[in-house]
């Protein structure tokens, strides 16, 4: 009998728990702009995700503390944990979209892909900053998706351009071997079409090394293959636990680190530090400033982090990924501001947000005004080009921190853009009937 009672109690608690929360509280203040943040602080990608999540949340909280929000309206910020899992991401989306969500930042190419078709239906834009579907830069096909400031194809073309510079011209790439090691998911596969096209055009050989998501920490086979093939350069599209493991393995097989270039998501300090002293010379793309020498970041430190309102570790502030998160929130904030200006409303909707993002113009003067002079390359979104700015720089690991080693490098827009448009068209055809753009151009 005692047995049964425990059981009944347990069931009752469980049921009560289940029923108690069937309707999620729509606790949305009328006079706030609601920004859901889809983040992941758990799971195999948490190592990268935590810094991004902190950066995103801290900047928005700082705006609330310092300026009382944007345009006098507070921001309601809510994080939803996705664990980099597409299912949970969609669940987060469904749970939060009803609260007048302004914009979604899925931080996972997989989740982005799921949200893209929903964006135009639910009238909430998707901001995939430097990830997601490259073709979405074509604003005519994807009016609701933004990937400022760069697409993966921009990034891949910059890497090839940089390798060309190192070799004394793109024509010298002929006969060279370039290895591409990537996370075997939507994310890592995204640049392949462009790399293949460039390989054909410039006559280098592209060797692909896929790292399955569940074997991220066990890459010895991939790197043994690298050792056998002896590629002249290695490009990496890694995320989460894949990055430090790859850098370690590269050190292990004594791959020349100065010929190993990662995408901007493989640019974390923790990643490079895992390789120890020998990882010196590892390079990565970047488009956001490194370090703490920006007034806005100091404000975050003073008003949010030091005030104990954030889980952020002060040490990690100013790191590549943290600053990347900040930049993401800067784009959101500037999008809201632009939307408020355009529509004259204070509390805006997803539709207004789309207009705001489409008329985003983050020039140098504006960057300086918000205390982030030189933090990023100026960005200007147009109705056709939803990825705004394009130039990227390359930073090098000096054993302790990343140092900027090149100036801003423009991607090969003439190659990328036609490919983007073709891909956008193909996407629309595959997903026929894809809705035509009906939204008027805001500019």
């Amino acid at each position: 009998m005692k047995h049964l009672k425990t059981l009944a109690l347990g069931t009752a608690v469980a049921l009560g728990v289940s029923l108690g929360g069937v309707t999620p509280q729509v606790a949305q203040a009328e006079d706030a702009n609601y920004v859901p943040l889809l983040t992941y602080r758990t799971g195999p990608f948490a190592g990268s995700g935590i810094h991004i999540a902190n950066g995103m949340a801290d900047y928005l909280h700082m705006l609330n503390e310092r300026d009382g929000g944007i345009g006098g309206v507070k921001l309601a910020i809510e994080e939803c944990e996705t664990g980099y899992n597409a299912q949970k991401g969609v669940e987060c989306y469904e749970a939060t979209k009803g609260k007048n969500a302004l914009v979604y930042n899925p931080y996972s190419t997989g989740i982005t892909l799921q949200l893209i078709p929903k964006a135009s239906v639910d009238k909430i834009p998707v901001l995939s900053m430097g990830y997601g579907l490259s073709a979405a830069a074509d604003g005519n096909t994807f009016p609701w998706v933004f990937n400022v400031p760069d697409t993966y194809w921009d990034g891949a073309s910059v890497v090839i351009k940089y390798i060309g510079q190192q070799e004394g011209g793109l024509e010298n790439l002929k006969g060279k071997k370039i290895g591409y090691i990537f996370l075997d998911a939507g994310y890592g596969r995204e640049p392949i079409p462009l790399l293949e096209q460039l390989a054909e055009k410039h006559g280098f050989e592209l060797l692909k090394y896929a790292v399955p998501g569940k074997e991220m920490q066990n890459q010895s086979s991939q790197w043994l293959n690298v050792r056998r093939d002896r590629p002249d350069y290695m490009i990496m599209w890694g995320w989460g636990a894949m990055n430090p493991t790859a850098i370690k393995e590269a050190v292990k097989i004594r791959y020349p680190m100065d010929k190993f270039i990662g995408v901007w998501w493989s640019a974390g300090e923790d990643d490079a530090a895992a390789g120890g002293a020998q990882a010196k010379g590892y390079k990565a793309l970047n488009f956001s400033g490194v370090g703490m020498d920006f007034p806005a970041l100091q404000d975050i430190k003073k008003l949010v982090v030091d005030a104990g309102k954030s889980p952020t570790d002060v040490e990690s502030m100013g790191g590549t990924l943290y600053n990347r998160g900040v930049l993401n929130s800067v784009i959101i904030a500037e999008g809201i501001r632009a939307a408020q200006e355009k529509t004259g409303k204070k509390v805006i909707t997803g539709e207004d947000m789309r207009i705001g993002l489409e008329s985003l113009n983050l020039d140098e003067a504006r960057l300086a005004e918000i205390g982030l002079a030189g933090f990023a390359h100026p960005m200007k979104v147009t109705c056709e080009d939803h990825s705004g700015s394009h130039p990227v720089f390359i930073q090098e690991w000096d054993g302790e921190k990343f140092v900027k080693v090149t100036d801003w490098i423009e991607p090969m827009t003439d190659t990328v853009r036609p490919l983007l448009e073709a891909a956008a068209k193909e996407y629309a055809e595959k997903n026929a009937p894809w809705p035509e753009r009906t939204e008027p151009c805001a500019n």
Partner: protein
Amino acid sequence: MLYDIFVDPFVQMYQMPDFFLQVLWEGFVAGILYALIALGFVLIFKASGVFNFAQGIMVVFAGLTLVGLHENGVPAFVALGLTIVVMGVLAYGIERVVMRPLVNQPDIILLMATIGLTYFLIGFGEFIFGGEPKRMIAEELWLPTGSTAFEFGERGLVILQHIDIAAAVIAIIMVAALGIFFNKTRIGRALRAVADDHQAALSVGISLNQIWAIVWFAAGLVALATGIMWGARSDVSFALEIVAFKALPVLILGGFTSIPGAIIGGLIIGFGEKIGELYWGGLVGGGIESWLAYIIALIFLLFRPQGLFGEKIIERV
């Protein structure tokens, strides 16, 4: 096509012997590490018939505890000692809370309980230590971290990581120690008695509960060693947990109850996987490592269902 399958790989092996040696070495190291995980499974299966799915997360948990303690300022060897204590408490807790009430339940229920335990430990571990990968404190534990390169011939090069050598040595010591423990000590004999027949063991005065706690503790120690070794190769993070699945085919090959079987099974899987991936994987696009081990085990099962060293299964109605 036929040439690619049957001739070309062997030609490659012949032409680049240094690379072949390196592949063999990598296979050996991977095999040792798989074997270490499998060892934890075997210990618990032998004594209680429970297939402990949580062994993978115990590896992560042990590694995280060690690193987490060190990060909070505890000296490395003290942290190691404390981690051993933590694993002991965990073992006792599992025996008390999970295993004891589930005595005599069918296998599948026990298996599920360990999966539940896995979930619990994932949440608990992340709750305490956070989700980001952590660097293993190999140097602080006086483990060698360098590498030695043997160069010969024109471009011949074989690189041996010292940590891998250490892993192999530790694995061998561990197996030897376990062997002595099982065969020469009083508790070891009691363990074997329990493994053979629970009721008979009970009737001669062996405490099942005590034995199980000891076994889980031993498995926890194995997990700690595995966690250190895996962690030194790649960081300690929850992604490691998935590696534990690789222990299953290892166990199939070696038999669920045999300690030398776990080692040999691990080596077969390690060698097979690396050689398969590097010489044949390219033909189908690579990445066959993720399932090759299971297919090897599957084929093996069809011919010898009880494993290499397992006890013959006799069924009666």
